[in-house]
């Protein structure tokens, strides 16, 4: 239940109802597609039906003959008007390959679904029909779809001119791994296959670009997590000045990384508006949204243990099928998967090789977890496998190998510096939350009846708030706090909300720091002409850096207000009390002033009682988390994260051995996100990520045929979980505040997809262990599980 709060109490730590949740409930939230402007035109994009093909010619004359069409142009024409799309994260900075990324295919299409031509018309239906009248002459090439084929010797290069298809190879090595493996008592190898699943927010992407004739500039209403960095991309791609671009990220209907920029449609739709001098809107179809991939990778995890079950070495070799080149930051997930090894485990000797491989599949974009979820999946499946092979309980093996609570700050073998944590405590809390022993007993009883219950546990370490030097992925952010002459507050912040209600968290923090009623606070996000320069939403950063900067700015403004209040009351500032909007002083018992009266005086009496301050009542401050270190250490390593949230997920399931169907029986998570600003909102993040990870492990799968043609085109094929699929989730907090961040914040939004997916796979393997089934390939569809059961026991299957 939401708590009511009197003005004098603090808001932080309470389940304050999200102000921004009212508008969607009455149908009045303004999502990007809800904006329509005078003279509005609509775009439809014609896409390549081939995964790889030479484009011999594009004839748009048929489209131009359709009544209501304003523009129909091909990739070459767009090329002439634009530069390559600026990379969100340029792989060349990290020693990888780079190429010019056109808004549309020019001579060659390099994946199914790549834009080839675009039509702009009076309405969507006309644009779609006209696009069907465009004639494209292709010569199909043999597509490179499989990652093994892409890395094979002599493979055709997906990008002409590249000597091979590896976009980037990154090794993470430390210690003497060979010696550790040579001396080990046990080496357990686990081959983990993670499939292609993406975040699929309920709102697809939408861009509505307006050419502003008066200022010769562009206003883009867009589903965008990072408005300021996108502004630079649009400017560079369209050869305009950055100050001629305004991005407005309105209410966002979910993002989870998919709305991080680099998409070709972003500059493309802006170009259409510029060429036509009219507003142009494009709405992504679900089929188009399903082109966007993530996480398709295979791991070969080798863990070396001594005779006591202590991990002494870790190897992994990862091949990731990242699809065609893209300006989106999806490829960087592969880098992060390696950087986050070996997760929560204390092992110095590591030898991890990450290969991000280009193919003729559509490209990735960022997805919740940003590669760190894949670390969790690979490590946690391997830990359970090791526990089984070593004859140790998976709980004990983890407890034996966790980094100890008193070892923080902890220097990881990849150069990360984990700020704080109590990993054993989090695990035990999760087990208590689900009643682990109770389920163990039920499992044993069920097995006697011939029913297969399983309990799976997985840990996820989620570095949050990341920043990469030399890129527009920044570690800091800025906010403005402005108190008006009537005592009401406007907060402007560089962080954006993908639908998490982080504006309410900002308001809670501002209300506490200013000492005002939260109802007096309005928060604005996502407008580059209004907000301070900011980097938006990614990497679980919003409340860490947004909240920190709001707090600093609010403290500055509060100091000004206090100074004026003290001057008005003729007392010292440190004698002031502010209770329920009324200032009083311990030095003067009878005199009081309202907060609003003090604010009014601050604006209007600048030459007498407010001489002591610089008006207006406004401050802009930046929070730069001190934990980040970009200066390389003696090994050349940096610590790009200020914060290391962590969590344990537990899944209890029952497997129907006749059908292979998995039923979820009980779920629990214990989470360390530092100080919880708003419990009901954090619980929402935990539960949402849990469902997303379970969906990924069970049924979400974007499939292509052997020619690289997309098979998964709707939610009929891409099966996300529905309400009945998910039993109640027990959520517990076990917080070790980050010693470096405001209020000890660690971030709550990114964690969960990997931990929950891994816990599910571990639960199924636990359930089917009596049958000798062991699966490390996702998703665990009924057919895959049923086949594994049939093939178990040396092909004997179940009796």
């Amino acid at each position: 239940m939401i708590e009511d709060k009197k003005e004098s109490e603090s808001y932080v730590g309470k389940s304050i109802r999200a102000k921004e949740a009212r508008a969607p409930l009455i149908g009045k939230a303004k999502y990007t597609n809800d904006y329509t402007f005078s003279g509005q035109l609509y775009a439809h994009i014609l896409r390549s039906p081939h995964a790889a093909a030479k484009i011999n010619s594009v004839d748009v004359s048929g489209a131009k003959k359709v009544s209501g069409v304003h523009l129909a142009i091909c990739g070459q024409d767009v090329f002439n008007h634009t530069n390559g799309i600026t990379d969100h994260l340029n792989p060349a900075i990290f020693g990888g390959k780079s190429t010019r990324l056109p808004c549309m295919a020019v001579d060659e299409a390099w994946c199914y679904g790549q834009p080839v031509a675009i039509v702009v018309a009076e309405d969507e239906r006309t644009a779609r029909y006209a696009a069907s009248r465009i004639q494209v002459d292709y010569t199909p090439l043999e597509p490179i779809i499989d990652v093994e084929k892409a890395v094979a010797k002599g493979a055709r290069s997906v990008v002409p001119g590249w000597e091979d298809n590896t976009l980037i190879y990154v090794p993470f090595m430390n210690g003497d791994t060979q010696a550790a493996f040579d001396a080990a008592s046990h080496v357990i190898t686990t081959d983990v296959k993670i499939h292609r699943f993406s975040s699929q927010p309920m709102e697809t992407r939408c861009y509505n670009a307006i050419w502003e004739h008066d200022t010769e500039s562009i206003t883009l209403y867009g589903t965008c997590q990072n408005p300021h960095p996108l502004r630079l991309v649009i400017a560079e791609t369209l050869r305009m000045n950055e100050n001629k671009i305004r991005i407005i990220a309105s209410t966002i209907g979910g993002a989870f990384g998919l709305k991080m920029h680099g998409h070709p449609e972003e500059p493309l739709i802006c170009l259409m508006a510029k060429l036509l001098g009219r507003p142009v809107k494009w709405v992504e179809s679900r089929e188009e949204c399903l082109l966007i991939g993530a996480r398709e990778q295979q791991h070969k995890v080798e863990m070396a243990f001594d005779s006591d079950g202590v991990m002494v070495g870790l190897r992994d070799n990862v091949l990731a099928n990242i699809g065609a080149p893209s300006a989106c930051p999806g490829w960087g997930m592969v880098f992060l998967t390696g950087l986050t090894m070996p997760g929560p485990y204390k092992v110095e000797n590591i030898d991890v090789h990450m290969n991000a491989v280009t193919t003729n599949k559509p490209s990735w974009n960022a997805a919740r977890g940003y590669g760190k979820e894949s670390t969790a999946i690979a490590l946690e499946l391997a830990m359970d496998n090791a526990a089984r092979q070593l004859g140790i309980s998976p709980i004990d093996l983890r407890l034996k190998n966790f980094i100890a609570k008193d070892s923080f700050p902890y220097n990881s073998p990849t150069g990360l510096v984990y700020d704080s944590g109590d990993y054993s405590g989090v695990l035990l809390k999760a087990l208590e939350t689900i009643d682990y022993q109770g389920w163990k007993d039920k499992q044993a009883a069920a097995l006697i009846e011939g029913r297969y219950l399983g309990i799976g546990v997985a840990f996820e370490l989620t570095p949050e708030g990341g920043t990469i030097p030399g890129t527009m992925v920044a570690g800091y952010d800025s906010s403005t706090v402005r108190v008006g002459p009537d005592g009401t507050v406007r907060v402007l912040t560089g962080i954006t909300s993908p639908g998490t209600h982080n504006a309410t968290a900002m308001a809670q923090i501002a209300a506490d720091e200013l000492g005002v009623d939260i109802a007096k606070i309005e928060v604005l996000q996502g407008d580059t002409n209004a907000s301070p320069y900011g980097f938006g939403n990614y990497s679980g950063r919003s409340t860490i850096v947004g909240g920190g900067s709001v707090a600093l700015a609010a403290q500055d403004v509060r100091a000004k207000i206090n100074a004026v209040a003290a001057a008005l009351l003729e007392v010292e500032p440190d004698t002031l009390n502010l209770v329920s909007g009324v200032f009083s002083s311990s030095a003067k018992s009878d005199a009081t002033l309202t907060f609003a009266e003090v604010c009014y005086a601050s604006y209007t009496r600048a030459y007498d009682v407010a001489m002591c301050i610089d008006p207006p009542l406004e401050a802009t401050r930046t929070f730069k988390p001190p934990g980040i270190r970009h200066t390389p250490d003696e090994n050349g390593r940096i610590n790009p994260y200020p914060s290391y949230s962590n969590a344990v997920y537990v899944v209890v399931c029952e497997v129907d051995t006749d059908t292979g169907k998995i039923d979820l029986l009980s779920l629990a998570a214990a989470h360390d996100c530092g100080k919880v600003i708003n419990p009901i909102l954090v619980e929402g993040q935990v539960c949402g990520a849990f469902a997303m990870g379970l969906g990924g492990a069970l049924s979400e799968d974007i499939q292509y045929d052997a020619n690289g043609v997309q098979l998964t085109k709707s939610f009929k094929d891409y099966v996300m979980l529905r309400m009945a699929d998910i039993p109640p989730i027990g959520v517990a907090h076990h917080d070790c505040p980050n010693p470096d961040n405001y209020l000890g914040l660690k971030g709550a939004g990114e964690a969960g997809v990997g931990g929950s997916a891994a816990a599910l796979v571990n639960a199924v393997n636990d359930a089917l262990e009596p049958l000798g089934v062991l699966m490390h390939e996702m998703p665990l569809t009924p057919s895959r599980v049923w086949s594994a059961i049939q093939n178990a026991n040396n092909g004997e299957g179940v009796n």
Partner: protein
Amino acid sequence: MEDLLDTSALIQLRVDGEFHELDVLAGRTLLDVLRDDIGKKGTHLGCKTGHCGACTVMIDGKVAKSCITMAATLARAEITTIEGLLDEKGGLHPIQQSFWDEAGLQCGYCAPGIVLSALELVTDNHHPSAEDIELALAGSLCRCTGYQSIKRSVAEACVRMYPANENIN
């Protein structure tokens, strides 16, 4: 010039209490008409295949997916969208208030469809079981909440709408 010609039909809709007479082309959906002709932007496009439920409205008191309902098939119909639930003074319907209080939405894109589906359920069934709620909301996908807070919101709405429930629970 090639003109796109299509047959059209005259339909009469009462949408959230307001009467509209519209000439609609054969290919247009109820969602198109609600959003583009009547300005009911609270009804959302999520998939265009009827799977996600973001477009859910009530047609003559029963929930339906407006993205796969051809407008021309509705010669006369009473439509309720999420925008029609407020009371005369602009106050929230108890079910809207429950979703707000219990954080039954995050990004809110699915919320209009989910609230209407829940309303249809609790109007007929004052004491829905967990299974009843799951069945009633099976047509809607939510990507943010993991559904926990949605279940709680529906249960809370029943308590508020039918105070006698408190004794039963």
